[in-house]
């Protein structure tokens, strides 16, 4: 925190638009935090490894036993956590920027529900985990397209939000029906999936997630980031400034939906990360626009931290990560509702 304050006082007054020092510091601190959590997370478990050994193993100089435990058992889960956190945060940042509301995240607007309902159908029909992932991706994208189709051209503002909420409610109803169709064990699996969990994730889940991130995030950053910032000033102003509004909006929406759907496919609909991470990032950087990179950094820290807590919070058993993000997110949300209301932003 002190570093943040020093940086702020040292900032020159006549700052140019572009990279903000405060955003850089926030991002770096979050990345550093993620690294520290990762080292601890890789080092603890049934077989504890000292932090120093974890670091040397990561750089490829550890002993074979450590290499096996970290590389094959613990690293895939951690990488999945990092990738899912980044994807959810980036998707959430784009959504919140597009609908111009700090609560307009994909979990509230039916995108995540689309993925869950599709995945639930596969679970109840007894499908494999590959089919489940494919269904989740298609479900999320399908729900997004449907919402956009019904909402019409006016993507910003209340109509998109309301259609999204309506869609989420319909899909929740269908999920409830699907849950009643399953027998006891399937239901337990379904409910675990619906909460969002990273248990037993291997490279099969981590790799597709990394590929999608590597493709979509640069596109978002380079092609959409600056445009989204201008779009927040209003459609008319943005058009006047030469932003291709419909193209930008549809492209950004689709990319965000893709990220969120893939995240849901690999870890289940982990609640609230997409809502909180961009919000927290914005609050810390105090910068306008979607704050994509800081959001991603905060998102990875949030999810790795939540997963670490989920594994060590209770002595007797591990929790699904979604429980931790749900509890943290719920508390943050209540606080947000009270403070933001006073400011008249919600």
């Amino acid at each position, binding site marked *: 925190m002190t570093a943040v304050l020093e940086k702020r006082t040292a900032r020159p007054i006549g700052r140019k638009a572009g990279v903000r020092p405060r955003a850089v510091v926030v991002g770096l601190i979050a990345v550093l935090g993620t690294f520290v959590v990762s080292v601890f997370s890789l080092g603890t478990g049934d077989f504890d490894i000292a932090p120093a050994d974890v670091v040397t193993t990561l750089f490829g100089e550890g002993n074979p036993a450590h290499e096996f435990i970290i590389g094959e058992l613990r690293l895939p889960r951690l990488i999945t956590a990092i990738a899912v956190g980044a994807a959810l945060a980036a998707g959430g940042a784009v959504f919140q920027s597009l609908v111009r509301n700090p609560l307009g995240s994909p979990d509230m607007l039916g995108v995540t529900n689309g993925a869950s309902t599709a995945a639930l159908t596969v679970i109840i029909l007894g499908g494999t985990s590959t089919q489940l992932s494919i269904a989740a991706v298609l479900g999320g994208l399908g729900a997004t397209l449907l919402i956009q189709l019904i909402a019409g051209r006016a993507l910003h503002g209340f109509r998109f939000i309301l259609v999204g909420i309506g869609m989420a409610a319909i899909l929740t109803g269908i999920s409830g029906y699907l849950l009643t169709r399953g027998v006891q064990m399937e239901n337990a699996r379904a409910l675990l999936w619906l909460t969002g969990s990273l248990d037993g994730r291997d490279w099969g889940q981590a790799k597709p997630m990394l590929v999608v991130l590597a493709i979509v995030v640069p596109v978002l950053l380079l092609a959409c980031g600056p445009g989204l910032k201008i779009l927040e000033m209003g459609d008319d102003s943005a058009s006047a400034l030469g932003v291709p509004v419909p193209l930008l909006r549809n492209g950004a929406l689709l990319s965000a939906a893709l990220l969120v759907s893939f995240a849901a496919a690999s870890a289940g609909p982990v609640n*609230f990360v997409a809502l909180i991470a961009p919000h927290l990032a914005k609050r810390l950087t105090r910068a306008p626009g979607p704050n994509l990179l800081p959001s991603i950094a905060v998102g990875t820290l949030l999810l790795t931290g939540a997963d670490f807590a989920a594994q060590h919070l209770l002595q007797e058993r591990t929790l699904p990560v979604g429980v931790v993000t749900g509890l943290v997110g719920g508390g943050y949300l209540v606080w947000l509702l009270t403070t933001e209301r006073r400011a008249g932003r919600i």
Partner: protein
Amino acid sequence: MLLALLVLAAVLVLSIGLGARFLSPGEVWAGLWDSSSAYYHIVHDSRLPRTLLGLMVGTALGLAGAIMQALTRNPLADPGLLGINAGASAAVATAAVFFGVGTFFGYVWFALAGAAIVTAMVYAVGGGRSATPARLALAGAALNATLLSYVSAVLLGDTQAIDRMKFWTAGSLASADFATVERLLPFFAAGLATGLLAARPLNALSLGDDAARALGARPAVIRTAVIVAVTLLCGSATAACGPIVFVGLLIPHMVRPFTGPDLRWMLPYTAVLAPVLLLGADVLGRVLGSPGELQVGTVTAVVGGPLFLYLVRAAK
């Protein structure tokens, strides 16, 4: 009003008549009153309690929705969408898992407490002048998501509880019996009476606090009474059959074009027509899902959802 009551009566007869053995309206009548009739047991043991429960729950949710819309001056307020029913569910899930409560009478107190907390929160967020419909709905959706994720988190540790609660979490009338109906009745009656009596003062309140005071109403008292009524209605309805969305939203919207904004007309119509939607959805669920059934909560979501989307599109 006569027409509305007729429609309600038709749905009631249909709801009693429909099932594994279809009963004609004449047989329903005989089964209701004549204890020597062959259908007496079918009607009294399973179908009548279910229908009565649907009647009460439907009325409760519809009325609560209409009152919330008036109180928050927000056309999109619905106890399901704003998370009030989810608050009651969260409390019930807590009761079921941590305290081993398993009966309606045990649930209901928890449900009332949960509904009361969320109602107060929704009012705090949405009652101010700055809140637009979309903002309130979004705040409610977020609250809803929090509470539902809490419910699944709590149920997750307990496989048997998942199985016991699965019909309840989807929203279902299937577990109805006379004991539940009897125990729901006092809460429902108190909520209904308070809600209907609040129509006149709420009308005054819709002019603004100052005008209402000038008309002799006391805004703080009215608000408290209304929040108590909503809590009673939603809490007891949710305890009896799980969280159900859209009933409280749609019926007031369908009624308003005929009655105008005067709550003295709107509330009674809503109270009569809301159970039509709920029982209709239940009947539909039994027809579509046979030989089993679709839960009424699923049907209201699937039928009510598109209607909601239509309203949003039409509203501009």
